[in-house]
């Protein structure tokens, strides 16, 4: 059999393959340059960018848990201006689609960043991280409120023609409500899921093990939750869903495709297996050949319920 067709489309954006990196776990790409052939990635998603540089939270910021980790980085990043000046020139000539994850404390901040990125050649898509506290709404995260999700998505949609992805938080009662709100407001695709809120306690000191008290759980431990949410969202909306959460092997990735993901992102696994993106890409390819599937799109959403 010929090499299978791995191309997928997100809005107007065509990816050479469905393997993406997850925001905050792959830096600005260059950190992995000697380890991973970056040009083989389908898309590269950079660390969340805010309008101004953010110092982040005090340490300790990470703690290992069973088959996972908690993080409370506090969205430390170089800020929009430095990103465009220092990071974009390296990323622009690379083959993978470039997705810039953005965050803000107010709608205006998101809009300003999205507008500035819209003028940037080499930026293919904007991914809204809506797991951020909405200062105007007393700190409730945007993504936990369908009205805030809808308004934010619509306002960003109005200022950009780039592919617009909205990254949903799993820390909600019904993720499909948020999914519909984002799609109705103009999202081209949904990234599902961000981290799950968690806590770890030091027995000796009886203090939280993170300075921020709580943190986001990621890694293999969250895979079943992510997979369930991808399945729910994929059934609820008619835009592509990007599956993320706990993927560390090609088998994990294939589960996400079957559950309805059009593409997948790999996060925490980059930390414990820096070549995981390449391993997953090769594994998916071999799986399609072995099972006689000519196109990855023929696999997507093929979960058998009867």
């Amino acid at each position, binding site marked *: 059999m010929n090499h299978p067709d791995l191309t997928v489309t997100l809005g107007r954006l065509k990816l050479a393959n469905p393997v993406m990196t997850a925001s*905050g776990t792959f830096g600005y790409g260059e*950190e992995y340059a*000697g380890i991973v052939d970056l040009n083989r990635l389908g898309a590269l998603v950079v660390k969340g960018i805010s309008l101004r540089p953010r110092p982040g939270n005090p340490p300790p910021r*990470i703690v290992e848990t069973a*088959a996972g980790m908690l993080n409370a*980085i506090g969205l430390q990043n170089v800020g929009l201006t430095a990103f465009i000046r220092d990071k974009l020139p390296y990323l622009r000539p690379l083959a993978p689609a470039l997705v810039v994850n953005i965050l803000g404390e107010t709608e205006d901040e998101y809009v300003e960043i999205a507008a500035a990125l819209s003028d940037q050649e080499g930026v293919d898509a904007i991914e809204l991280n809506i797991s951020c506290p909405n200062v105007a709404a007393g700190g409730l995260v945007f993504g936990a409120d369908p009205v805030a999700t809808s308004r934010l998505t619509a306002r960003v949609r109005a200022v950009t023609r780039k592919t617009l992805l909205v990254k949903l938080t799993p820390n909600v009662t019904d993720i499909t409500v948020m999914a519909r709100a984002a799609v109705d407001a103009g999202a081209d695709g949904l990234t599902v899921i961000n981290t799950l809120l968690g806590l770890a306690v030091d027995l000796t000191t009886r203090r939280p093990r993170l300075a921020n008290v709580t943190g986001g759980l990621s890694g*293999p*431990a969250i895979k079943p939750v992510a997979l369930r949410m991808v399945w729910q969202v994929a059934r609820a909306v008619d835009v592509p869903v990007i599956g993320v959460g706990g993927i560390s092997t090609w088998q994990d990735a294939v589960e996400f495709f079957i559950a309805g993901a059009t593409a997948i992102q790999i996060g925490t696994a980059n930390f*414990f297996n820096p070549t995981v993106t390449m391993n997953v890409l090769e594994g998916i390819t071999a799986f399609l050949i072995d099972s006689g599937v000519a196109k990855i799109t023929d696999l997507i959403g093929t979960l058998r319920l009867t």
Partner: protein
Amino acid sequence: MDKNQSQFQTDPNPTSGITEPFSGSPRHIQAKVVATRRITNDVYHLSLMGEEIATAARPGQFVMVRVSQAVDPLLPRPFSIHRVMGDRFDILFRVVGQGTRILARTAVGETFAVTGPLGRGFLLAPGRVLLVAGGIGLAPLFFLAQDLISRGFCRPDEVTVLAGGRGRADILCREELTELGVRLQITTEDGSLGRPGLVTSLVQEQLEAASEPIRVVSCGPKAMLQAVAGLAAAAGCPCQVSLETGMACGLGVCLGCVVRKADTPGPAYLRVCREGPVFDAGEVFNS
């Protein structure tokens, strides 16, 4: 990828003879264990085969070792490069938890996924140097002593190693250090070897006795580093410290390993895996 990319950046002022080892592009390899040795009750020594890492490694740099193929423990563990020989590199570690317990059971012939060399190592500079080690903190300082001598930065008698620990079992590499010809002085808290007390008392004596500023380099528990840095600052001596924090990636991307940058009005953080693990003491300890 550029295999021959230099791991070495020279000081812009070449006449100073100071060389600062940075991490270039790290490698990710499957490294076979070629020797294991139990040094004390809870300290072990592993030799791993890995030319890409061994030839690029600079003193003070570290590797991330994935101790298990399973997902628990999930994250790789950071270890200083303890010494290199040809295409082998060694680590020296103390068993403190699940990951190091697994490593301690390693048999020759097993392989581990290793990423490295990582981080910014020690400054290599000519002249007298005081290496202050607390317990397992000797691991990277041994490599530094060896490198300073073999590269001709220092005569063996210009290198003084001050090694401190709770008891005699914490004083590592005595024979190897003696072989190198460095000056070695020891303190133990229980008095079972060398002078009873804390290593900082030796640091103070050495700094007071010196006729001109000596470079101080230290690795060990944080409280010790802080005390050593204070003594060095008071004596007007430059001081480098090697820090440890919990790490996830080792590559500078997760931003999990940070320490607060010293003497800044607002919060600012430095990544131990990237801007460190070796810092000028003034970068991380408030003056």
